């Protein structure tokens, strides 16, 4: 078994797949630089991320997987889970070595792992599409911040810019310290010099908000209360759908 050390990037991961064929390594253990602890008995092979090599592997994979699986691959990568890199690596080699259609082999452990991890990331993306609560600022920008379990921000622009095409908005990931800004034309990644803290009640201080913002927060809280049917109260079901860790985003849970 050979030990490969890579930089944790998607490009690096795909380069590692390339090198494993180039070096004819039958079995590879893949670790990131961040998690690598030097070992007396085994020296690692350092992967140098290489755009061209990465692209060649990706093109090879795309020949064997449809659009849906390409997205799954990327979603699984965004999960930041410790064992996902190894699964992606094994998966890539398996798909390249097999005839097309091997992605349907859900009994294969790496295929199943990628499919399940991608599903988790997809769910988190979907939750963000649901739980983002914009606040309108005095200068007309709709602002929201989030702390998603996985790095789902790169998956969000399409959804939000299709929907909010005529308003400027920012969605900021406080945990990973970057955000998305849509300026009516395009969505770009931004970093705020001084990112706001995740506060329990309103995300932004009231002096930067639009004067009507308070009214709509209030009306939304009222609506949330009025639309509930007391006789059907079912806290377990409520919490299953809206896990407690997301409550901090939700203005209706602050009333």
């Amino acid at each position, binding site marked *: 078994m050979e030990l490969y050390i890579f930089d944790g990037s998607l490009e690096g991961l795909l380069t590692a797949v390339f090198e494993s064929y180039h070096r004819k390594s039958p079995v590879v253990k893949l670790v990131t630089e961040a998690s690598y602890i030097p070992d007396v008995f085994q020296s690692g092979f350092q992967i140098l991320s290489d755009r061209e090599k990465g692209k060649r592997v990706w093109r090879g994979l795309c020949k064997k997987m449809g659009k849906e699986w390409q997205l799954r691959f990327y979603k699984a990568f965004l999960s930041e889970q410790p064992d996902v890199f190894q699964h992606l690596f094994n998966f890539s080699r398996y798909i390249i070595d097999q005839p097309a259609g091997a992605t349907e082999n859900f*009994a294969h452990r790496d295929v199943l792992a990628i499919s399940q991890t991608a599903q988790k990331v997809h769910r988190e993306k979907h939750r963000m599409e649901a739980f983002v609560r914009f606040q309108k600022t005095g200068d007309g920008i709709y602002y*929201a911040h989030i702390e998603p379990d996985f790095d789902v921000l790169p998956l969000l622009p399409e959804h939000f810019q299709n929907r909010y095409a005529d*308003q400027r908005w920012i969605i900021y990931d406080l945990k990973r310290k970057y955000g998305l800004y849509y300026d009516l034309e395009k969505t770009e990644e931004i970093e705020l010099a001084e990112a706001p803290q995740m506060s329990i009640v309103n995300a932004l201080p009231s002096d930067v908000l639009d004067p009507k913002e308070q009214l709509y927060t209030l009306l939304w809280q009222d609506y949330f209360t009025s639309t509930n049917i007391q006789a*059907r109260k079912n806290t377990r079901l409520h919490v299953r759908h809206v896990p407690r860790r997301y409550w901090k985003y939700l203005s209706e849970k602050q009333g």
Partner: protein
Amino acid sequence: MYERIREKLGILADAAKYDVSCSSSGSNRKNENKGIGDAEGTGICHTYTEDGRCVSLLKILLTNHCIYDCAFCVSRRSNDIKRAAFTVEEVVELTMNFYRRNYIEGLFLSSGIFKDADYTMERLVRIVKKLRQEERFNGYIHLKTIPGASDELLREAGMYADRMSINLEMPTETGLKLLAPEKSHAEVKKPLKYIQNSITQFQSEKALIKSVPKFVPAGQSTQIVVGATPESDKEILYTANAFYQRFSLKRVYYSGYIPISHDSRLPVIGSQPPLIRENRLYQADWLMRFYGFKVQEILNDIHPNLEVDVDPKLSWALRNLDQFPVDVNTADYYMILRVPGIGVSSALKIVQARKFGRLYQSHLRKLGIAFGKARHFIRYADSPIQLKDYEAGHIKGLILSESKSKYQKNPHNQLSLF
């Protein structure tokens, strides 16, 4: 200064909440005019109420003034409650401001009948027209069809709405007549049919001419109140099935009756709504729509009601043990779909994965099926040799003793003594 609008929203959201439809999916309205909103694809539940129901749309009545006196309805004429009415502008403002903040997927607009059907329908149409044309709103709009409104108004409404619905309320005509003598199922069927025909007409025109506008792209739905009148589950599900077939409905919703009246014809205030029954009806509805079951297989004269302690799929399997065990490595997809504990997505995975090799217990467990339940009904590569056939009652007992049902032996509304 906000008091008036807050009070109105309180009254008119409260009165609208007994309509349980929350769907915001199935439309295909894209944001193509760089306006606001997008109702393409799957719906989104933006939050859930404390009773665990999805909040996807701003669900309100235009007004809760009503000329009718239906015993099961909180807005009935004779009920002594506060009345209110939104203006057209207020509804538009609320919808737009909620939508822009990502609170909702769109608007669910219903209304009590004031003056007459056309007058009410005309107001509803005015609101959705303003949203679409002036605000360039492409979010989801679910609009109530007012029984008795003219065809012209329905046709105009259909040009702006994504979904339209009209409620049967009681599962049978007799039940409806008992509680709402002024109403009938016939007046529900007429507009359902009219809109269904218009949808078909628009679709066939669209096949020829691409620029034909959308007409109710997310189809129609209805709601049946459960437990207000003494119908059996069979009567409820057969009605639902007939409406699915005759009017190509997208959904039938089942709403467990919440007692809101001292009327002696109805369950008393404070009695528990039939939540388990409602849940079982939805499960049976899913079996009809996604699992290839015929309604007669689920309920018939020998079994007129759904069981409370097991779900309808398990109940069917226990009554039809001669069809099992099913070999997951060879059986037809539709037969695998009938195994208790295997859902649509795991059934698909099974038929895909078995092309690559025989499936063992360990594969099945990882694929995400409810193995504990399914194992009584399947064979797989390493299934243990079974020496005798178990009886239905025995299997049921095993499954119940191993599972932690959400409906435990004591209903959760029942107080424990200690």
